[in-house]
């Protein structure tokens, strides 16, 4: 019986991997999240004037997430100049540390927008399992790329993809 389960799940995984190659863009769901100041707003209301958007899930306790965001921060000015991309870093820290995120982000001098998702509502609605998990949205708000995990140097690849999206290329089929 266990063999059947493992086999079915392997098939499932294969199906999902195949599905990823030809996926059409999903849009952001209608979910309320908070700003660093505690104000509630709907994630569907984010807009970047037709330029790409990058949404990255992180938490204070996630080391690779902080490394990824440090890497994005180091390059943010250049990236914005070249592509107009806007980065939203969504913290899934629960009530233990929600109030700590604001002073932490300022202490780090991170330039991008940080949002709070303390009960994981957006994380759940976007089917995020493990963090870091990063999404790239095109100018029309379609999710065209997503990845999980962070390895040193990944930001270069992410930027290449953002450049392509800014130029209007379709990257949904690419690795």
């Amino acid at each position: 019986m266990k063999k059947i389960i493992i086999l079915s799940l392997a098939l499932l995984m294969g199906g999902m991997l195949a599905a990823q190659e030809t996926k059409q863009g999903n849009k952001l769901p209608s979910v309320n999240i908070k700003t660093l100041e505690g104000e509630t707003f709907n994630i569907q209301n984010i807009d970047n004037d037709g330029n790409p958007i990058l949404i990255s899930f992180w938490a204070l306790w996630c080391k690779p997430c902080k490394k990824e965001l440090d890497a994005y921060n180091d390059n943010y000015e250049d990236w914005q100049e070249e592509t107009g991309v806007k980065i939203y870093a969504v913290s899934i820290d629960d009530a233990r540390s929600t109030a700590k995120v604001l002073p932490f982000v300022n202490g780090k001098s991170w330039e991008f927008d940080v949002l709070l998702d303390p009960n994981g509502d957006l994380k759940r609605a976007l089917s995020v399992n493990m963090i870091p998990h990063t999404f790239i949205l095109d100018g029309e708000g379609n999710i065209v790329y997503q990845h999980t995990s962070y390895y040193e140097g990944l930001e270069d690849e992410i930027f290449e993809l953002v450049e392509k999206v800014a130029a209007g290329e379709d990257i949904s089929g690419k690795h």
Partner: protein
Amino acid sequence: MIKRIFSTLAIILALSSMSVAQGFLGKSEVHGSFEVDGMYYHADDELGITEEDINGQTFGFNGFADIIYTLDNFSAGFRYEAYLPPIAGFERSLEGQGFPYLWASYTTDKFSFTIGNFYEQFGNGLTLRTYQEWTLGYDNSLNGARVTFEPVKGLLFKGVYGTQRYFWSKWEKNGRGIVKGIDGEINLNDVFSGMSDSKFRLILGGSAVSKYQSDQSLKYKMPTNVASFAGRFNMGIGKFNFSSEYAYKINDPSAINKYIYKPGDAFIFSGSYSTKGLGIYAQFKRIDNMSFKSDEAVTSNALDINFLPPLIEAHTYMLAAMYPYATQPNGEMGFQFEVTYKVPKKSKLGGKYGMGITVNYSQMNSIVKEIPNDTVAYVGQPGTMGWKSDFFKFGDEIYNRDLTIEVNKKFSRKFKSIFKYIYQEYNIDVMQGHTGDPNIKANIGIIDMTYKITSKKSIRWELQGLWTKEDKGDWAAALIEYTVSPHWFITIADQYNYGNKHAYERIHYYTGSFGYTLKTTRFALTYGRQREGVVCVGGVCRQVPASSGFYVTISSSF
């Protein structure tokens, strides 16, 4: 049962394949995720695990698949879970499989309506928080209905009604309780146009939650309706931000508080000052008899209606996480202070890239408990008012103390490092039930360095030490990790209890892992020894037994 699993998995596969055919379905979208964690155990003489201990249970398997379907304003979904059997350290009651999470929802601009299972948090969670934490095997979702209403921007009302998940057990009439709650939040800057440009920002909120459970007790007269109320605010003035919440719960005798009739309360206050390059944070917290479960008889990690956020700094480095804090719902009181500072670039200390410094001090004590009146023989006597407690006095017992100093510095384009010193004092008697054992006082040192070999290949290594006279004595740990962006990682790590007073317990807990990531799919395989310990998320903990063997995890989103 086999047929049932196979056919339901076939349905999941069909639905996921639908995502390929999305073009034909117009505006509808299907997406989801799944994770499979498997463990294979074998005997290990050094760890004291014999074949008899394993007793044929060589396998542990936790898995789930979660699907969401969206069409315009309508969405629906489910999660399938299987624990066949649960991995060691997870509740045995999780054994089995099924669909514990099933829901449908309709959302418009001003209003949303959900039926089925849902998760919700009011404020900081002191009155209500239902959530899921896969790594803990924790899920207290409400099954019923949820309504939200936003009549104007800045004013949000929520209402919930339902019964909570309890592993695989279906709700029965005289079983666990029914939970009802309402919450309102007003953002004064949005609602009052005169305030929209003000430097002063204010958000106010309040909630009321009650549970109904029939009186099944033969010994005590139990209140069938227990109500909990909370008020909160979040205030910003320029660079300062203050937030606070106070919750009050009427009498709620339960197995957790040993059936006392004392009401409970909880208070959190946080303040921060932030400007570019500097963040200062302070928090005060007090809890007195605030466990709130929908079944008075349950003591395991289940059926909590509210969430009591812990205050102590959470650690993820191997040795720093050895003594993690568990929230004490019957009474605790503490404070935390943290400063995050970025030494500017091009300064003497900062160097070319700047340097980050973080200093955090947190401490939790017991609360003072005294006999409330002459009819009570001792503090906490069941069937009485239990105790009275002076709000402003710290108790004598230290539950946990943590001083963390972290410096992180990038030396060059290729080389960066984190240096960390931690001093911990941990009350192992209260936290883990080691009655009579003294508080553990430990000094911990960590060095974590990363070297970028090429733009895609990188190597990271860690050296850690934990020095203490108590419990298991001194530890040393080392880790090396090699990564090739964007796909591969390989890691070797070892934790060595070299300072244990018993020679036979000076064991190496070694592990080797490797993994592969392709976009949102991650596969990781680990072989080695897991040290006995505690895994805590948000102050909720589960015990992890020592084990030896293989661990595989596959996770994906689509």
